[in-house]
């Protein structure tokens, strides 16, 4: 297993093409825009090497019997699925942000299960190829980006019907050495500081979309791959002196997302895990999406623990901690967060083995969790804003606080209770501002799929006929079933 330093060192060997603010960025490690995201991902390596956390953050490889970082593990039981949720909550608490590695982890598990089933039907050798790749990933403790979301263009049209055929990643050439792909993937979490990416289709495909039914893995610095790093709310504060105004200055917010372009990228056959088997694209999407939606009651609960903690702190700093309405709001925040956690634990405890032997979550419950995340995180943040007060939107800057002439005024007039410094009060308020607005909120809505995507899967698995029959039976309606 890699440790924190080895992970960061390993990124230096990559020649990843990254663009940000109209410039090519050659050194991402020391760049203030990427550093927090690298710190956050690095914690998945650091904590895995600490005895206090190894039970959750390491596992035994079912392929080699070796101790591996859990983020490269294939779930072998419901216990593994539950530990996944607990590991994510732990890391959410420690970072207050996204630590990015779950996406690739879910891509590994989804691809593992689906390649096995494809081979059973078609006699292909995708699973065998994938096992070799998995061993390589586990052995080198690699960080994998899970690349699913295509730009999609006109959403009313199939991939093959788009005016521009590149709006979904597709195969443009096949030869005896491999395939050549073109297109793009949007919202690529952690890809800038990953080693590899697993590219998957984003929707179910028909026969006419055969060239779009493609799964493969490549290094993020493969020739022809370009990453354009996205902006976040208040991201330019990372270029400023000091740390207070950045809020979560060490780990940032969400994962650091990029638009990744594939300009006729060559993929060798040993790294191709689906190539035209369009009837398995939907299954892969369902597996990946359900694994990924399982996560949100883990990591978001961990992040919510920090938000709730910040609400408790600011209530104390403001001298209102004992007010009954404040306590009630905090209870409501805890209730919402733990409801999310319940869903993730439940969908894991009700997991089951797939034909490959790897365990899959209960997809109905996993989609329900994520649907709740699209609402409850907003409510948790709303309550936190309510408790914190309007000051989170009007605070003077750290530069003003440190200014010899006007700083004393800020010290004097923004003071709360006597035993808490003005600076500490401002620090908590900035953390709240950073963690509860803008990009951080949107990620809860659309990360792991937009709300409607969950509703489609909920409806598909809701077993409405059985529910109707229950009602008809109790109402005494006689039907020949």
């Amino acid at each position, binding site marked *: 297993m890699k440790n924190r330093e080895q992970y960061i060192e390993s990124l230096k060997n990559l020649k990843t093409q990254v663009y940000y603010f109209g410039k090519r960025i050659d050194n991402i490690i020391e760049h203030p825009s990427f550093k927090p995201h690298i710190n956050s991902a690095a914690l998945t390596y650091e904590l895995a090497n600490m005895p206090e*956390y190894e039970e*959750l953050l390491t596992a035994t490889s079912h392929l080699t019997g070796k101790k591996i970082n859990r983020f490269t593990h294939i779930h072998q039981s419901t216990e593994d699925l539950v530990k996944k949720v607990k*590991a994510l909550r732990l890391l959410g608490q420690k970072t207050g942000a996204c630590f990015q590695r779950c996406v690739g982890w879910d891509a590994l598990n989804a691809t593992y299960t689906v390649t096995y089933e494809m081979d059973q039907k078609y006699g292909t050798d995708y699973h065998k190829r994938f096992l070799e790749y998995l061993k390589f990933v586990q052995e080198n403790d690699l960080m994998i980006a899970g690349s699913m979301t295509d730009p999609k263009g006109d959403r009313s049209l199939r991939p093959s019907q788009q005016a521009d055929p590149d709006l979904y990643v597709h195969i443009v050439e096949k030869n005896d050495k491999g395939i050549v792909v073109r297109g793009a993937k949007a919202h690529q979490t952690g890809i800038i500081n990953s080693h590899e990416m697993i590219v998957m289709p984003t929707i179910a495909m028909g026969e006419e979309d055969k060239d779009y039914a493609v799964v493969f893995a490549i290094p993020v610095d493969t020739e022809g791959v370009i990453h354009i790093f996205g902006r976040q709310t208040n991201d330019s504060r990372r270029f400023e002196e000091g740390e207070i105004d950045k809020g979560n200055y060490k780990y940032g917010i969400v994962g650091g997302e990029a638009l990744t372009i594939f300009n006729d990228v060559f993929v060798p056959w040993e790294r191709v895990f689906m190539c035209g088997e369009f009837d398995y694209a939907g299954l892969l999407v369902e597996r990946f999406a359900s694994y990924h939606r399982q996560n949100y009651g883990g990591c978001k609960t961990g992040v919510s623990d920090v938000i709730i903690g910040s609400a408790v702190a600011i209530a104390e700093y403001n001298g209102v901690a004992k007010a009954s309405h404040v306590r009630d709001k905090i209870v409501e925040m805890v209730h919402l967060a733990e409801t999310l956690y319940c869903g993730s634990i439940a969908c894991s405890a009700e997991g089951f083995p797939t034909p490959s032997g790897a365990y899959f979550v209960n997809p109905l419950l996993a989609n329900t969790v994520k649907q709740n995340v699209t609402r409850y995180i907003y409510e948790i943040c709303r309550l936190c804003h309510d408790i914190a007060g309007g000051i989170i939107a009007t605070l003077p800057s750290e530069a003003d606080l440190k200014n010899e002439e006007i700083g004393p005024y800020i010290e004097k007039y923004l003071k709360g209770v006597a035993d808490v410094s003005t600076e500490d009060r401002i620090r908590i308020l900035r953390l709240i501002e950073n963690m509860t607005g803008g990009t951080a909120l949107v990620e809860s809505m659309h990360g792991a799929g937009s709300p409607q995507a969950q509703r489609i899967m909920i409806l598909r698995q809701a077993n409405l006929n059985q529910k109707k029959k229950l009602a008809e039976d109790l109402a005494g309606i006689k039907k020949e079933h």
Partner: protein
Amino acid sequence: MKIVGIKYCGECNPEIDIGDFMKRLKLRLNSLGFTLTTDIDKSYGLIIVNGCRVGCLKREKFANFENIVVINGASIDSVIVDESKLAEKIAEKLFGGNC
């Protein structure tokens, strides 16, 4: 100095202050001539530290140890204990009247 093994649950949502508890535990064990190790194969006895009452890490997983104390949040072997007394009580459990 003799060694006592320690194994952690992973601490996803601890109910007790693990840092404070560990400080007290190390001090108490040191005063009795013991030190803690995570290399549990070489240890005299084992302390299983679960951060909360769920107690994910079970005693059964370590059946080869004779002398085990299980902490589930602020409880030892299912008996609720004042958090500040945890370290003291563990020492009593492990070493009986010798401490």
